[in-house]
């Protein structure tokens, strides 16, 4: 009996406790509503936070844009002008130690060979000016060794999407180094003799030149400009003597130049230039001859693949026979060179060059010259180079010039 009573009491107590711990339906509903309100509040807070983040992002973006505008955009007329104007240049200092057995060509000298400044200005997207001012051999003037020259000064205009024209003084589109001759861009202390004595680099004229792209990798240049003037009265006959350098240059008889170039494959350049000079004597009469026309044909190939490099060039002048009244064999002037190279590291490169040229190739005179060069370029920076080379030049008649050259060059 007592046991039953105790069990009943225990059951009653448990039911009461259980009933007291479980919320009623009303309480449950109130709880859900409360939680819903809290969720709604949290959602609202989250939305507000997201909105604030978005606003902050917008403000940050606007701040970035404003700061970038101030720091990168022109802040004055002067800054705007400076933004459209470019300055560059290059220079090369040489030491030549050359010995000649049979002539007075020996050299043991230091020379600031070239100091050049470029100035360019972009008038608008299609119109620009470019110039190159050069001092050669450091001191120019009466009785001095050097010269001050303006090698380029032209206006260039993009008259169609892939075509442009320039007018003024410009470099001839011929050869390898005539247009690209910054010292860090070629091997050897001195520029190669074939392009110097046959083309003749560096060579600039005044006139108009049209250039552009015909197809992928195929470009052209075609122009009409001042011609060479080989003065017969002072017995000039070498092509190099004919450069008038656009200094009150005789314009009686013009010259015409055309070049085709292919650069569609990385590392490869194939190019050929033809030029017609209507009269190298520019209207003068000498020994009964009054017109000496001439045609230049030049072709070259450049191929760089990995560390290997190869350059080869051939140039030939076919000149009217009348020039032989000045010098026998000068009606043919020609030459070629081949130049393999190897880049040991990014900074160090080796080269060898064999050159052969003759300014009296039209005769059987012993006038042909051969030159062997071997050397090294060491680039301290991509625009600064130290150079050293050994050369041996032989003339068919027996003269020999040999020795070494050292140089430092830069461009910017």
């Amino acid at each position, binding site marked *: 009996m007592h046991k039953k009573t105790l069990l009943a009491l225990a059951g009653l107590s448990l039911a009461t406790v259980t009933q007291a711990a479980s919320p009623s339906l009303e309480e449950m509903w109130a709880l859900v509503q409360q939680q819903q309100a809290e969720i709604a509040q949290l959602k609202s807070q989250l939305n507000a936070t997201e909105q604030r983040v978005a606003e902050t992002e917008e403000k940050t973006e606007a701040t*970035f844009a404003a*700061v*970038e505008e101030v*720091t*990168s955009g022109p802040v004055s007329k002067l800054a705007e002008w400076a933004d459209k104007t*470019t300055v*560059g240049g290059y220079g090369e200092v040489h030491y030549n130690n050359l010995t000649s057995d049979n002539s007075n060509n020996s050299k043991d000298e230091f020379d600031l060979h070239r100091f050049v400044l470029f100035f*360019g200005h*972009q008038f608008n*997207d299609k119109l620009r000016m470019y110039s190159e001012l050069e001092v050669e051999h450091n001191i120019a003037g009466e009785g001095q060794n050097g010269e001050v020259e303006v090698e380029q000064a032209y206006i*260039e205009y*993009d*008259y*169609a*999407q*892939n*075509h*442009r024209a320039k007018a003024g003084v410009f470099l001839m589109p011929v050869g390898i180094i005539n*247009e*690209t001759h910054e010292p860090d*861009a070629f091997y050897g202390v001195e520029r190669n003799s074939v392009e110097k004595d046959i083309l003749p680099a560096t060579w600039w004229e005044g006139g108009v030149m*049209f*250039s*552009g*792209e*015909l*197809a*992928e*990798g195929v*470009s*052209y240049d*075609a122009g*009409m400009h001042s011609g060479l003037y080989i003065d017969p009265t002072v017995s000039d006959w070498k092509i190099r003597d004919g450069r008038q350098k656009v200094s009150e240059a005789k314009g009686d008889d013009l010259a*015409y130049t055309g070049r085709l170039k292919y*650069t*569609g*494959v*990385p*590392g*490869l*350049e194939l190019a050929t230039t033809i030029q017609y000079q209507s009269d190298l004597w520019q209207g003068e009469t000498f020994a009964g001859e009054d017109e000496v026309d001439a045609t230049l044909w030049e072709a070259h190939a*450049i191929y*760089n*693949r*990995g*560390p290997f490099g190869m350059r080869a060039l051939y140039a030939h002048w076919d000149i009217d026979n009348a020039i032989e009244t000045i010098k026998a064999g000068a009606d043919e002037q020609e030459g070629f060179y081949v130049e393999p190279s190897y880049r040991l590291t990014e900074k160090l490169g080796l080269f060898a060059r064999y050159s052969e040229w003759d300014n009296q190739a039209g005769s059987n005179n012993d006038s042909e010259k051969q030159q062997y060069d071997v050397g090294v370029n060491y680039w301290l920076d*991509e625009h600064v180079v130290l150079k050293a080379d050994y050369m041996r030049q032989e003339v068919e008649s027996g003269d020999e010039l040999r020795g070494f050259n050292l140089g430092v060059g830069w461009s910017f």
Partner: protein
Amino acid sequence: MAALLFVVTLTLSNGTFAKGVYQTGPEFIAEVFGNDTPKAKSLLLTPQLKETASQIMNRQVRGLRMRYWQSDSNTAWIMEEIGKELPITIGVVIRENQIVQIKILAFRESRGWEVRYPAFTKQYQGVKITTELALDKHIDGITGATLSVRAVNKVATLALYFHQQIALKAEQESSTLAPKTP
């Protein structure tokens, strides 16, 4: 007369464009990501990033940030670098620290435009950055366009470096958020 005719013929010829804007930035990004073009992000240029970027570009890198676009492990970058005198606009796409694509979007100078040819730009496919902050593959240049080639090389290297930094940061963040094992 013949010379004039020659020039007129050339002018009228329908050659490819030597210079100008070949593709705008938004067109490039749309081409890379298609319909799922992501929103542009910004990589803040911290002093450390600027110092390394300046080393890669061989000039002082300025600015507060570098914009980029990211979808999964792909990032796309549009950068400008001066070749000789005027800026070249270059688009770079990178996936898992390798270049997928380089495209010249605009070239403004008279020389060196050959860098835009696929024959040149395809050399960059699969190229990575080395620990010395250089490209891990030799890129054959273009004669007479040395400065343009250098500009593309520098931009390629910088984009790889920035991509690498983003990937590293993402890795660090994911390892911080990962639950710690007891």
